[in-house]
């Protein structure tokens, strides 16, 4: 039955459906990076790349 349904589905709804899914993800990520307490975490993390310690590093 599932296969039959899929075979006769009107696929033109896909772009709209997919965009809704994307915007949900996008907005979700925006909320995620702005969650409570994230500012302090990210402020510290964005410098992690500079901490290496090797004597021949810049």
């Amino acid at each position, binding site marked *: 039955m599932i296969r039959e349904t899929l075979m006769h589905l009107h696929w033109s709804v896909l772009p709209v459906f997919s965009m809704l899914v994307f915007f949900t993800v996008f907005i979700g990520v*925006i909320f995620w990076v702005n969650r409570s307490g994230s500012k302090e975490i990210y402020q510290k993390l964005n410098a992690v790349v500079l901490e290496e310690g090797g004597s021949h590093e810049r």
Partner: protein
Amino acid sequence: MEYTTKFKYDDEIVRKFTLATLVWGFVAFLVGIYVALELASHQFNLSLPYFSFGRLRPLHTNAAIFAFAGNGIFAGIYYSLQRVLKTRLFSDKISNFHFWGWQLIIVSAALTLPFGLTQGKEYAELIWPIDIAIAVVWLAFGYNMIRTILIRRVEHIYVAVWFYIATFVTVALLHVFNSLAVPFSLIGSYPIYAGVSDALVQWWYGHNAVAFFLTTPFLGLMYYFIPKAVNRPVYSYRLSVVHFWTLVFIYIWAGPHHLLNSAVPDWAQNLGVAFSVMLWIPSWGGMINGLLTIRGAWDKLRTDPVVKFLALAATFYGMATFEGPLLSLKSVSELGHYTDWIIAHVHSGALGWNGFLTFGMIYYLVPKLWKTELYSKDLANIHFWTGTLGILIYVISMYVSGFTQGLMWREVTDSGRLAYPDFVQTVVRIIPLYWIRTLGGVVYLGGFIVMLYNVRMTILKAPKGSLEDPSDEYTPYQIAKNTHTESLTTSFSHRVLERMPLVLTVLVLVGVGFGSLVSLAPMFLSASVVDSNYGGSKVRGYSALELAGRDIYVREGCYTCHSQMIRKTVGDVLRYGPASRIEDSLYDRPFQWGSKRIGPDLAREGTKYPNLWHYRHMKNPQEVLTGSIMPSYGWLYKTKIDYESLPRKLGIMQMLNVPYSDAEVEQALNNAKDDAKQIADGLRAEGENVKDDQEILALIAYLQALGQTVGGAK
């Protein structure tokens, strides 16, 4: 609690990949210049099969993408991965297996492609045994990376590593599913997909090879090397997180924008367009994040060649990712697709973004890896300006060429007829631009040679024995309470979602898997895609001789110059006839729609010219068509048709649902010989000296079948 740990990074593997990048970069650029020359003057094809454009062009693209960029990626990933994770790579043996395996794959590609051993799918040309080798080596790379992440000394996984994880997961997925094929010999195979399904899967792969081989790993490198080069933190870590997830989620959907105005169903095209336009958001977010990381250190743009290269690379990334979505709009695609505009777009990305980021990275790495100073900043600056000039000469000439082609192809007179009905008229017009393009390539290569010299002198300048200096052997790293890593342990959600490599891997897989499934599955499930009544009868499979000819067409890389897709555009329909439909290539394995028209579309070439015309044209194109830049295919008049393999090939096609009867499969050899003799008899009657087993006969049979497999015609 506080303690200090000492460990040694594996820089030897980084040095190997760095040197391989330089070697293969030289090869890729050199072959690129040679194929550019072949378009400027067909004489450069040398009338030899191993030097023909159709065979060398895939060698150029594979060398540039997988050999030059690939080795560059691995060098950068292995260097940065160890340092942001504060640990040595998990296994030296696997690292070395990865390195030598990858080089072996590249050498195999270089040996097979000029011999016409190809699957005929763009950027996935390599034959099935090499495909398996790629999968094995790629999995070794991924395993080594994931295990390295698991033994890290820091808790957090820096965002660059996220991009590396996405690269590993998605490329594995793309490569495996796009390469699924049924072998008919040790070197030959047919893909399990056909026609429009093959096209959608191929461009799902092709587009995302750009996304996840030429973009996400380079973005990871950007997030590492720009902060290192300017000694400043990333402008916004938050933005990098948004950049990552939106890019991973969106990119995978955009493949169908390579098939606009084609026979692909509209919903699939619209899906591709919508997601392509949305790509502007993460792409520009990432570019801005990269460039703003240089804030406060702009003076280094004048003084530090590393920063120059990296900044211009990010700028080219912004330009290319602005242009990509623009080209994915149907109306813009109508003008730009199949033209040199795409070549300009691709090369601004490859030479500017991938090339310059790799160069910047190497200028940064080489002095550190060999523990010395760069031999000459002046030479690095000369490389920068020469490379920039080379890119500009290249892309500007190709933009002009592309606009010229696109406009000439569709220009109509007041009476509604094509203003330039002969395709060759549009070819002749752009030849000077092909010479200028070649010059651009030479200038770019010139800059690269300066770099080779500079790197060589830098390595020679390194104090002897410096690599074995015990005082610099181990990197001390202090792990202590109250460092940034410890302070994060309180956040459970952060720990789960941003620190666990397996969770990240699964999330990436869900993101790209969902997009892939939704955008591809309907083609395999929908009942309404194929109109079996189109043309009044069912579609037939190719005859045995036509199939043999098709294999020759694929072997010679004809798709690199000729499309087989008449788009639903006025210019295409006026020039080539009714727009192509899905049924026209229903059993085409692989599909041969192409992506570039250096010559005319061939979708409805069948019966357009007599056999004699093709016979003479393939032998000496310029004799038949003044101004043609097509090379001579003289060897097809000497090599013999492989009749013996035909029953096996038709049997596999039958297994893949091509409607061959058992008798057709069993009699394939005799049928093919009969058909070849019939064509040869006709040519002999016209005065040609033809043998019954010349490969050209099979190719003629195939060309005459194009557009003729629907409607009951044979």
